[in-house]
């Protein structure tokens, strides 16, 4: 049976990963673990009263999972998309073969999902070793983390396909990802923010990713808010995908 067209595009990224996995493991996996050790365990040892009812390390471990997913999902939808369109024209190589624009897009997003899965599995295993995961629901933190990542990847891929230079990516980091990383509930509960900022934090995708992952890993979650978080992430992924379909087509079909 013929391999589906988008799987062939996915195959390209997997093939490429064989060359880069060593360095990417460092950035995408070692960093969160170092954060966890330094801030969760090191700094956490100074925090004697519980945060949201748990030890500090328990509090930040699932938050870092979501934040890492955000970071990987975003990053993979920036420079590699630029590479495909402009720098190496990888996408155009695909489009000269049976693949269509939709296959190119799906293959790339599917690859990002695979990357997110790999990193999240390893990270969750480490977190379990730290004794943080205390609920069988923690297994579900895996799809939650992947959804957090794709909720960033899909819309950012749509944006990247409209760009001619990579300066826009710096802006996304500076005014988007870094503030989110710091203030969306990863390191401290958003209830600590000034009152007017809380609704802003509540509206960000990372906040929903963090809440969902934290609830699942710690086994403290209520059904409706959790479903709301999940729906938010899935909806953002879907909207991003639809936008990316348009921007990819506009850019690649000329």
């Amino acid at each position, binding site marked *: 049976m013929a391999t589906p067209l988008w799987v*062939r595009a996915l195959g390209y990224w997997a093939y490429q990963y064989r060359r880069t996995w060593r360095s990417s493991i460092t950035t995408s996996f070692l960093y969160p673990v170092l954060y966890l050790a330094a801030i969760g365990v090191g700094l956490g040892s100074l925090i004697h009263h519980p945060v949201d009812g748990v030890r500090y390390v328990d509090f930040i471990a699932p938050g870092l999972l979501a934040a890492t997913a955000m970071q990987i999902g975003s990053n993979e939808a920036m420079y590699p998309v630029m590479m495909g369109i402009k720098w190496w024209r990888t996408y155009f190589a695909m489009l000269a073969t*049976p693949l269509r624009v939709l296959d190119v897009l799906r293959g790339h997003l599917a690859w990002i999902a695979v990357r997110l899965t790999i990193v999240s599995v390893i990270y969750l295993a480490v977190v379990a070793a730290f004794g943080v995961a205390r609920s069988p629901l923690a297994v579900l933190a895996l799809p939650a983390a992947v959804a957090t990542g794709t909720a960033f990847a899909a819309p950012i891929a749509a944006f990247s396909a409209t760009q001619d230079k990579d300066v826009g990516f710096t802006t996304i980091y500076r005014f988007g990802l870094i503030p989110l990383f710091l203030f969306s509930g990863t390191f401290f509960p958003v209830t600590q923010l000034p009152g007017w900022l809380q609704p802003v934090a509540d509206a960000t995708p990372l906040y929903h990713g963090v809440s969902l992952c934290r609830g699942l890993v710690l086994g403290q979650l209520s059904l409706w808010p959790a479903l709301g978080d999940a729906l938010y992430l899935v909806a953002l992924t879907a909207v991003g995908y639809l936008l990316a379909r348009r921007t990819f087509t506009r850019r690649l079909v000329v």
Partner: protein
Amino acid sequence: MVARGLTKRFGDFVAVDSVDFEIDRGESFGFLGPNGAGKTSTMKMISCTSPVSGGTLRVLGMDPAVDGTRIRARIGLVPQEDSLDLELTVLDNLMIYGRYFDLPRPLIRRRAQQLLEFAQLTDRADDRVDPLSGGMKRRLTIARSLISDPDLLILDEPTTGLDPQARHLLWDRLYRLKQEGKTLVITTHYMDEAEQLCDRLVVMDHGRFAAEGTPRELIERYSTREVVELRFRSGEHESVAHRLAGLAVRSEVLPDRLLLYTADGDATLSQVHAAGFTPESALVRRATLEDVFLRLTGRTLVD
């Protein structure tokens, strides 16, 4: 392949202006034309990588708008701009490309070995692409287009940047592919290449066909049999051309020389001398496609 009123527009700009052509199975067909003539735009439409803006197009008997995937499965494309993965090795680039066509890995590996041999890249198979020379990358792109054993090969300036030996190797290969019954569509700025490779060709200018025929026909139709090339001191060509106009069927002034079109070059050259002109150098040669090109577009082929 059949095109009727084939048109490509970019906004208000018409890059390909309602052209008609037919290319038969097993034929090799060339597109010549100055920069910006619309060759690449045409290649992209017939390789089903760019949608047509108007007219009808059938490739391998199918409609690109409907069957793009099935058509492209049988096409090998050498685009004008390379699209290699620079971080991967030479061999990996071939492996990946073969996978897009869903070929089994052992088959790709076997073909890759032969193609690397042909592209003279065997000893670079495991090197990254990035540091390869421009010509080597071009050879790899050409090898890559053949990995799927395509029925239709579309080559957009395949030999730009290749050294003479590599060009001859490619010609030889293309000639053999043609004998196997493959269809070739080529654009080039080299008229010797067009004369060698193309059964039929068109000269494009401003999105239209200025002429169509076999190389021989075109030379007969648009040029005389022989050409006298005269070189005077720079700046003199224009005025000399005026005074020699009566000696030739047609004359053409280039920045560095004067061309006289005539049936008998030696006779014309004697007349030039008899008229008291002393060019710095003089040469009598047979007319080529370059003369056809010059006549039709007012430009030299390589500009």
